[in-house]
């Protein structure tokens, strides 16, 4: 066991920190459009110096960063309070999925514009009736000459209104059941047959969208991993989803908790054992999350890919993140619920944590079945 970073990893971190120091993009501008443009510029700055896709192999514009370096990358971004690159879904999900399942032509065509943010990606998996039960999806792809016509509805599609490409899973065999007969496509978002409607959340803002597809066109060459193989390809994407962002999220959580701790200390609240114990409880949870995530990293390095233990850290993170803003309101009083307080947004946004990217109920199923080997019901 050695919980220090290697000289290389430390050098990586120091180089990154120094780079961020000189390239820090400052605070986000007001407004969703401006903010997204600012993140595109930020990604281009990262890409120009080889920082946009550190975990990708050098031949595709990455640095071939180790898992630890990737974790450090995400931690440092969060620590410096700079945003994720604009094309985070292409970088984390789309690119890695193509590297495993894509053809040479596809890699040639699609990878480079992901890194440069020339083409933004989004993910079209969930449907209104296929949320936790992804295999129930109904969007259908009908084979026509030279390609496919796709009709259906997708939901929870972040970045859809900025995206050029959508990772789309659709039912390519009519009346096929569950995981069978699905195909993974790359769909061009720039066509009239794709309508994007923002989906407003309880926070009041619209991070996500609905997609309405009416005979949307996808050429044959945009099938990834072969017709009918969509479930397997989608699993690769999902695996990367749970593994990728954990380190950044957890640093953001810790930053939030530190902020609460500072405010509480400044108000003299830590003199109360009750307050100190409750704050301490969250610090304990936060550290268990971080340590367990690093243990998972070692296991991933050993076994080649992230295991289902990632479900544990997603679950720990969402639970703890919800507790932080709840405790903030309890300690700081009703003023923390005013919209001019940073805690009120956090409180509302955190409610989504245990739903997005796998509900906690589904994560517990995964842990029970795949980690503990318990039987499935029926």
């Amino acid at each position, binding site marked *: 066991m050695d919980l220090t970073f290697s000289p290389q990893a430390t050098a990586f971190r120091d180089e990154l920190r120094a780079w961020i120091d000189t390239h820090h993009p400052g605070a986000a501008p007001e407004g969703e459009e401006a903010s997204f443009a600012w993140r595109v510029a930020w990604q281009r700055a990262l890409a120009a110096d080889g920082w946009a896709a550190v975990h990708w192999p050098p031949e595709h514009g990455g640095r071939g960063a180790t898992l630890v370096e990737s974790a450090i990358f995400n931690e440092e971004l969060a620590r410096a309070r700079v945003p994720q690159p604009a094309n985070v879904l292409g970088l984390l999900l789309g690119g890695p999925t193509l590297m495993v399942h894509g053809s040479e032509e596809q890699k040639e065509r699609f990878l480079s514009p992901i890194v440069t943010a020339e083409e933004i990606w989004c993910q079209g998996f969930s449907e209104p009736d296929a949320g936790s039960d992804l295999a129930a999806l109904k969007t259908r792809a009908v084979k026509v000459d030279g390609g496919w016509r796709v009709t259906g509805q997708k939901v929870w599609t972040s970045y859809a209104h900025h995206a050029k490409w959508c990772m789309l899973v659709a039912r390519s065999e009519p009346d096929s059941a569950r995981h069978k007969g699905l195909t993974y496509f790359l769909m061009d978002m720039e066509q009239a047959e794709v309508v994007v409607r923002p989906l*407003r959340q309880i926070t009041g803002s619209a991070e996500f969208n609905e997609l309405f597809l009416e005979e949307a066109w996808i050429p044959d060459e945009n099938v990834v991993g072969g017709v009918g193989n969509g479930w397997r390809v989608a699993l690769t994407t999902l695996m990367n989803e749970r593994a990728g962002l954990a380190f950044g999220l957890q640093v953001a959580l810790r930053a939030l908790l530190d902020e609460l701790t500072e405010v509480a200390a400044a108000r003299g609240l830590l003199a109360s054992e009750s307050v100190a114990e409750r704050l301490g409880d969250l610090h304990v949870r936060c550290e268990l999350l971080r340590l367990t995530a690093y243990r998972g990293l070692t296991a991933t390095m050993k076994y080649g890919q992230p295991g289902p233990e990632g479900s544990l850290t997603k679950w720990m993170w969402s639970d703890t993140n919800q507790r932080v803003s709840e405790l903030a309101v*309890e300690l700081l009083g009703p003023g923390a619920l005013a919209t001019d307080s940073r805690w009120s947004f956090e409180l509302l946004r955190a409610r989504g944590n245990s*739903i997005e990217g796998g509900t906690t109920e589904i994560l517990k199923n995964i842990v029970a079945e795949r980690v503990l080997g318990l039987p499935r019901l029926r």
Partner: protein
Amino acid sequence: MHFDFTDDQREIRRTARELLAARSGFERVRAVAERDDGAYDEALWRELVELGWAGIALPEAVGGQGLGVLELAILLEELGYAVTPSPIFSNAAAGLLIDAAGSDAQREALLPGIASGEQTATVALARDGVAELVPDGDSARWIVLVEEGRAIVCDALAGGLEIAPRATIDPTRRYARVAVGPGALSLELERDVAAGLDRAEVALAAELCGLAERALVLTVAYVKERRQFGTPVGAFQAVSHRAAEMLLETEGARSATWFAAWAADAEPASLARGASLAKAAASDAGRHVTAAAIQLHGGIGFTWEADVHWLYKRAQVDAALLVPAARHRARVARLAVAAAAAPAAAGAAVA
């Protein structure tokens, strides 16, 4: 021993449930919440006033209906159930406090306007003369601020107060920050504040119970319909057991709130304990049950379009108003110690 409502009380509940279903459905709540100024439905307010509900628990002598805190609690549970945008709660809570803590002269001066709804009041805890979040603080004529066991009534029309509307996560109610400036006109209520504050806490607890109840009802209906993995999701224990826990918390909070409301009317010696039980239980239930409702609605529950978030948001603010639950819990323990040290003549009541 009869731990249930009388026919008259049931009638209040039925009337309120029907009126609010018709006049304060979610589409109306949404309309208020989405207005920039968050202005309430004036016609609804007049209707509530005409029913005498602004002064339901105030004495007839000052123009109230002369009913009890229990009747008010029944009404507020319904207003919570409907998340109705209305100053009824803040006005009633302040009225209870003034009625309990005011001198006869103060009561005669202030309560008639409150009972008739013509000059509404509100109440909040203050620190150094500042109350961060006063419900309906920008529309009330009388603002009661409680600080260190003293309550002052400020006249919003007399100047000297800084009143700044303040948006919160709960757009179904208006709030303001209120600071008492040097030139403010205020009078201090002359009698003990504790019992009045406890009555206000019971009113708050009742609204929280209604919010929890509605969240449970919405959730049960949803999980019976929503299908995943080939079955209604309500059949999965992850869902059904959580729903059972929602019921447990909701019903526990209602038991305590009704007890406290009854004690306020019929057995004041039990009010302090009852109010603390009620606020502790109801603020937990309100927050937990509405959060669980969002979770059990899944992604839909996280959208602005679904209505379950109005309940969650109101419950968060309600739970944070007046005295925090943690202090009520500590108080219950200390009351138990005091009761053990000086066992009173055994009460005749169930609790």
